[in-house]
Structure formats: structure tokens, C-alpha cells
């Protein structure tokens, strides 16, 4: 088998050359890689949704990954070694996800694997990561890591999970929007998670879910479900996803007209869709959870600014050179932050090669606070080494004149819940 040519390897070849010049004293040290025991690159297998239903996310996860790796390499790499990304398409397919991990471990000699978004691909791949004993850093926001369903080799340090996101919304909803909530959600695992987590959380705030309206996933028209919304409803909580979301918004607007209850949703519904699109006018004045504020805020941090510039997105979270192309801004920061955590973990563990994989996992498990910084532009994080899950700030934005304006920041504490697993008790 001929060794794989990789576009990034080639580019890194230039980087490595620069490193040699730096080592020889021709270039300032900051511009090259420090001399390390091994000058071989650290190989990170990127399990990419290049094709399949996750391809739109895959493109942006790829762009963010490239930007993060460029920054890491520009700053000297990891332990003085350049980072190389080896991409395998998982087709957003659990079986192929597991095959990608096998290629990373056995064919490409990757040090770690990283990047997966879709829950079913994570769940399909994680057991193989455990068998192959390769650290698997996912960027999925699913609760499957913290729920204890996976293994010691699977970690989610760069993005919060859906349980934390949902429960941290309850205090704001109950205190500002209303206590009688009607939930409208797609009738499968994703929607059920929202239903179950939020019902518990709002009750803890003295509120209640007065109706749970489950919509079949293949539904494309929604008007017939709206009469099931009780009159007493003060807040509608919606998490519809899929191509019919726009129809959902339009029909909801037609149903309520100008007098509507408060409306709260998850930006997952409109990820990569311009909130200012015609047809979405009804969303004016409604609220959205955002993993990271898509639109640059008045008090934008330097970290946010640097992150956007590196990834190539503008103040509206869209591609700088293709402004109609809105990014998956609420999720893709997870790639950036996860890569920085891998770097920090490897440096802490003095990672030299695959023989140090367990040291790397232990080093990441030992991480706790990760303050907001250029490495963590989304905000402060608190990592729980036992559950392999990170916790962080959550953002609630209000649609105001076609902009998502930050209305409330939920604290890390708002999203904490009791541990459901202790992976550190599992042997390697």
C-alpha cells in the first residue's frame, strides 16, 4: 500500500522545513517548531461527516479544524511537533465511523481520533475506539458520554451536552418567560431528550409542562398540531429540526398571528440558516439557546474576534467570502476547543507516541477549569474527568431586528447535574 498523500501533510511539510530553519537559528524560534525528541507529526484522525446527512456540519467542522490546527502549528505545534490532520469520511454512518477509527489506528498510525458530531455515529464508533485503545474526542453535544454508555477512551471535553444545555435554560424560562410551558418536539431520541430533561428542570423551578406535542419526524405540515396547544400556555418550547423547520415557523406564525405566547427554541432548528431570512419574521422577539452567540455582540471579546477571523466567519457568523453561507456557529467551536484540549493534555502528559495514550487520557481527566481564552473562545469550561464531559456557559439570545442579541448567559452551575458514571474506575 502506497503511503497516503495528504494535502495537509504536504502543507505541514513546509512547516517542518521551517522548523528545521528555526532549529538552525535562521528563523526566530516562535516561527518554527521547537526541537523535540521526535520531529514526526502528531497525527490526529478527523472523523468527518464529509458526506451523508451531516455534510453541512462536516464542512464547517473541517474549516474550524483547519483553522485550529494552523494556529497550533503556527505556535509551535504540540510538544514541539507539528500536528497533522488525517481525514476520513464517515458518511455520517455509524458502521463507517467504526471503520474510520480502524483506519486511524491501524493504517494511518494516528495518535488520537477526533471530531464526530452525530450521536449515532459516536455511539457506533466509541466501542471500536475502546477495543483499539485509541483516545476518541467527540464534539457531539450528545448525553451519551456523560450518561455512562460509552467507555474510558471516549471523551467530550470541548462541547457541553444536551442535558446540561436544556436544564440550564429552565431558570431563565421560568423566571422571565412563564411557568406554563408547551413543548413541541420531533418524536425521536433527540426530541425525547429535550422533553425529559426540560420537564424535570422546569418542575424544579416551580413551573410545569402543560402539553407535550410530539411531531412525527417525516411530518412536513404542522397546522393540525397547533390546536393541541393549551390556552393556558405561557411559553412554547420548540426544538424542531429538518427541512420542514421553516414551514413550522411560518405555520406557527399564521396560527397565532400577532398575539402569541412567549416562544423559546434551540438554535439547532435554524443552525446554518440566516435568522434574517424572509419567512422567519415571526421569530422576531422570540428566544433561542445558542451554544455560542452567532452574531458578534456589542461587548465582543478579543477571543471571539480572533476565533472568527481564524475560521473565516464574519460578525453574523457567516463565511467572510460567501456571506449567504451561514456557519454552524453554535457547535463548531467545539472542534477548536477540543483540539486545544488535546494539545494541553499531550503537553501535560509529555505525550511522545501511542504508548502514552493512557497518560493522555489521565491528563485530560485531571483537567478541571478552562478559563475563557483564545483556546476557549466560547467561554469558561469546567471539565468533569469522571464523566468525561465538559460543562460551560450557555447563551440565550433574543431575535431583535433580524439579529440574535444576547439576553442572558446561563452560568456553568445552572447546567450541572449529578454524575451518572465514573469512567476513571474503568481499567484501560
Amino acid at each position, binding site marked *: 500500500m502506497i503511503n497516503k498523500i495528504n494535502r495537509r501533510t*504536504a502543507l505541514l511539510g513546509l512547516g517542518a522545513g521551517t522548523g528545521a530553519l528555526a532549529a538552525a537559528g535562521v528563523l526566530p524560534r516562535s516561527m518554527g517548531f521547537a526541537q523535540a525528541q521526535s520531529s514526526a507529526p502528531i497525527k490526529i484522525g478527523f472523523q468527518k461527516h464529509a458526506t451523508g446527512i451531516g455534510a453541512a456540519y462536516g464542512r464547517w467542522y473541517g474549516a474550524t479544524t483547519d483553522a485550529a490546527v494552523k494556529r497550533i502549528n503556527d505556535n509551535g505545534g504540540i510538544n514541539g511537533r507539528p500536528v497533522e490532520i488525517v481525514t476520513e469520511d464517515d458518511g455520517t454512518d455509524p458502521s463507517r465511523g467504526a471503520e474510520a477509527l480502524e483506519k486511524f489506528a491501524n493504517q494511518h498510525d494516528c495518535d488520537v481520533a477526533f471530531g464526530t458530531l452525530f450521536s449515532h455515529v459516536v455511539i457506533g464508533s466509541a466501542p471500536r475506539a475502546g477495543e483499539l485503545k485509541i483516545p476518541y474526542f467527540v464534539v457531539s453535544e450528545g448525553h451519551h458520554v456523560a450518561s455512562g454508555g460509552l467507555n474510558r477512551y471516549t471523551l467530550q471535553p470541548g462541547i457541553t451536552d444536551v442535558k446540561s444545555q436544556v436544564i440550564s435554560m429552565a431558570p431563565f424560562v421560568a423566571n422571565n418567560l412563564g411557568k406554563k410551558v408547551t413543548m413541541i418536539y420531533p418524536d425521536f431520541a433527540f426530541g425525547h431528550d429535550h422533553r425529559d430533561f426540560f420537564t424535570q428542570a422546569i418542575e424544579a423551578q416551580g413551573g410545569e409542562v402543560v402539553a407535550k406535542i410530539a411531531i412525527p419526524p*417525516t411530518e412536513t405540515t404542522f397546522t393540525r398540531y397547533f390546536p393541541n396547544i393549551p390556552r393556558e400556555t405561557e411559553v412554547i418550547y420548540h426544538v424542531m429540526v429538518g427541512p*420542514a423547520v421553516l*414551514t413550522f415557523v411560518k405555520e406557527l406564525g399564521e396560527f397565532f398571528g400577532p398575539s402569541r405566547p412567549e416562544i423559546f427554541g434551540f438554535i439547532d432548528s435554524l443552525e446554518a440558516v440566516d435568522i434574517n431570512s424572509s419567512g422567519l419574521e415571526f421569530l422576531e422577539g422570540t428566544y433561542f439557546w445558542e451554544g455560542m452567540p452567532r452574531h458578534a455582540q456589542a461587548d465582543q471579546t478579543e477571543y471571539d474576534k480572533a476565533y472568527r477571523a481564524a475560521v473565516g466567519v464574519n460578525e453574523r457568523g457567516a463565511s467572510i467570502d460567501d456571506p449567504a453561507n451561514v456557519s454552524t456557529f453554535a457547535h463548531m467551536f467545539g472542534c477548536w476547543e477540543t483540539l486545544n484540549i488535546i494539545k494541553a493534555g499531550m503537553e501535560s502528559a509529555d505525550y511522545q507516541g501511542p504508548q502514552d495514550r493512557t497518560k493522555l487520557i489521565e491528563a485530560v481527566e485531571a483537567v478541571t477549569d478552562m478559563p475563557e481564552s483564545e483556546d476557549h473562545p466560547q467561554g469558561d469550561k469546567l471539565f468533569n474527568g469522571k464523566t468525561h464531559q465538559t460543562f460551560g456557559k450557555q447563551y440565550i439570545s433574543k431575535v431583535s431586528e433580524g439579529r440574535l442579541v444576547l439576553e442572558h448567559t446561563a452560568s456553568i452551575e445552572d447546567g450541572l447535574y449529578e454524575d451518572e458514571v465514573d469512567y476513571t474506575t474503568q481499567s484501560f
Partner: protein
Amino acid sequence: MRRSQETFFAVAVAVAVISHLAAAPAFAHAAEQGFVLLLPTTAYITAGTLAVAATMLLLLVLKPGQIDRVFRPYDAAFKARWTWSLDVVPLIASVCLGFLILIGFAGPSDPQENLLPLTLWTVWWMAFFVVQGLVFNVWQWINPWAGLHRLIQPDAAGVYQIHKDPSVWPAVVVFLGFQGFVLADAAPNDPDRLAAFALGYSVFTFLGMSLFGRDFWLRHVECFTVMFNLIGSMRVARSGITVNIGLPGWQVFETTRPSLSHAVFVLVILASGSFDGLHETFWWLDQLGVNPLEYPGRSAMIWKTSVGLYAAIGLLTAIFAGAVFIGVLAVNRSKNRLPVSFAEAFVRFSITLLPIAIGYHFAHYFVTFMVQIQFVIINLSDPLAAGWNLLGLNSTRVKVGFLAVPETVKVVWIIQAGVVVVSHILSVLLCHRTAELLCNNKRDIVKLQLGLSFLMVAYTIFGLWLLASPRGV
């Protein structure tokens, strides 16, 4: 008189198309599929279907033989000689395929960065299919096997001589396998896998040409040559002593009568294309109990997709045969008429489906092509992934924003739907002309098309519905 009827006919077609476009009200809304769902596609589908039906009604006023003029080619009175290039270009194509296979095995594992899947699927399968079927005979230039084989083995004869004519039945079987790979394989985009497939097929073709003779193999077994020749009969231009140009399909009436295997090949092309669209829809996934919002991936769907594909081919063949049979029965029930042969009608009418197959191919892949061709161009900047930047495009990102703007999504959808409608109208014209070949009086010409007319209208609705349906793959 004849001129005025030609003009009338041209206007009728134009009116049908324009009425379809004009039926689209100014209705702008929010990412591609979501925007399409907001379009008044039911009205568009109705307008498109009415345009096809109206064409059928207009044909009723024509006297037998008059439509013949529509398909009569125009002699452009210039010569086109490609002889030199036909010796050289196919060899370049062979070298390109060799390089592409090497890139497939040794290049980037990301299919969006590897020129093998990008070129084969985007340039060859999506684009050349349409170019071959509409513009010019691109396959005679880029067939990567024939030219090289001619160079290596000038003697076209193989080791074994087969005297029995198998028609294109072997090619039908090979093409069925290819369609299975395209639609049901877990990862047809995976560079390694595709390289193995392309290499394997190239070896198979070379061996076949060497063992059984180049011409025999290309004519009867090599499914892409057979397919490109078949759809090539719809091209507007043909180069003979001079170049002749005519309405797509005019060449059908100037070539020899196709065989039953050709008819089945056409049905396989059409049914595969339609099933490609169908198997992505929420409707299909719902039938299978698959949640499109949590699509389990192609690996979990291999058998379901395979069975669906081959069942769709069988079903379309049966429906088409039934539609032809109704017409033949209607004609043959009349007394004092020469009976029409069902077999001949089946074969001849099948060719009239080619415009629909080409039109739907265009419509189905149009959006994907516009995105993927950007990846092709960007990757040409560094074809060997060696860090080159030949075109200065290495840091360029693919632009997909046009799919997130309702206005452009609407334009794109109308182009897709317009092509589907026009292709059906063309099929209706070909169908009428074919009926005239088989019957010699107006009443029988209409009767013979009874079943097919319903099929054409139903297929218009089906094709447009596929474009308007939410997809989950």
C-alpha cells in the same frame, strides 16, 4: 401550410414552457430544502403537468406525417473533422484515468479533496451524461479503454470469436451492477474503494476486449459505451459528411431499429435515475420505517436500497409494458387494420423515454453538481496533493451560500422543474412520431398512445414531486 404548422408547433411548445414559468408567483422564503418546501410546488407541478397534457392535445390536431418535419434535421453545411483528435484525446483520457486511480489509492482520504471521486462522479457521471445526451459525442473522445487498447493491440480481433449476437444484454447486466454500486454501496465516494472499482472495471474491460475482440466487447458488454451510444441518439447534432442539427431525438428515426435489450437498457437508465430520487425522499424512508432526521447511514440500507432499486426497475418495466399493451390492444381491436406488434411497439416506444431519463438526470444532480464542481476546480490547483497551488485556489472555499437564499433556491428549482417538463414534452413528441411509424391513420395513432399518454402525465407528476419532496439522505 407546412411552415405555418411548424411555427404553430414551436409556439405551442414555448407557450407550454412559459406558462409553466409564469405560473410561479413571486413567493420568496428561508436553506435549500426548507425553502423548496415553502415554494408553491403543488401549483408548479400542476402547471408542468398541464403543459405536458396540453402538448398531447395539440398533437391531436396534426395530420399524420406533419410532426415528421419537426424532427427533420437542418443541414448546417459545414464539415467537422476530428480524426486527429480521436487518435490522441482518448490516449490522454487513458492517462488521466490512470492518474486518477493512483490518486484514489494514494491521495487524500477525504472524498472532497480527492480528484478520483470528484472527477468520476461530478464531471463524468453528472456532467458528461448530459453533454453526451444533448450536445456532442464526448464519449468517443474520453473512452479511456478503447484508444489505449487500439494502441497496444491494433488488431481488434480477440482470442475467442463469438458468432452469436448477444445484443446488449451483457451490458444490461453489467449496468445493473453499476447502478447497484452507485445507489446501494456503503461508500461509493470513498477514494480507495472507488479506485479499486475503477481499476477492477478497467481490467475487466481490457481482458474482455483482448479475449473477445474490442468491437464485440464495446458493442455488447461495456455498459458505458452502450449507455453513451444510447443516450447519444438524443443529441441535437450529428457529424456526417456535414453537420446536421435537429430537435433532440431526431437521430432516432435515422438509425436502425433497436432491439429488446436496448429497450430494457433504457428502462434501467430511467428507473435507476428515478429510484435515485425516490430513495432519498421522506416518503420512501417512511415506508421503510427509517427516521430521515436520524438516517442510519448507507451501510444500514444496502439491502433495502438494492431490493428497492431492482424492484423499481421491474415495476417500471411492467408499467411501461402495460401502457404499451393498452395502446396495442386498442388498435388491434379495430377491424380491418394491420395489427401492431406488441414487441415492436415496446422496443420503439422505450426509446422515447430517453429525454425523460436525461432530463431527470440533469435535474436530480443539478444542485450537487454546482457545489461539487467547485471542489473539482479547487483540487485541480493541487491535483497530486503535493502542496502545489497551480491555480492559486488552495485557500478558496466552496461557495454554497446560493442554496441559503430563497430567491436563488427558487430559480434553481424552476430550472430543474423546467428541464423535467421540457424533457417530458420532448418524449411526448417522440412518442407521437413513433406512433406514426407504427400506424397509418390518425385514429390509430392516438389509440396507440392511450396508455403511454397516461404514463407520461403520471411520470411528469412523479418527477416534479421528487424534486419538491423533502429528502433525508
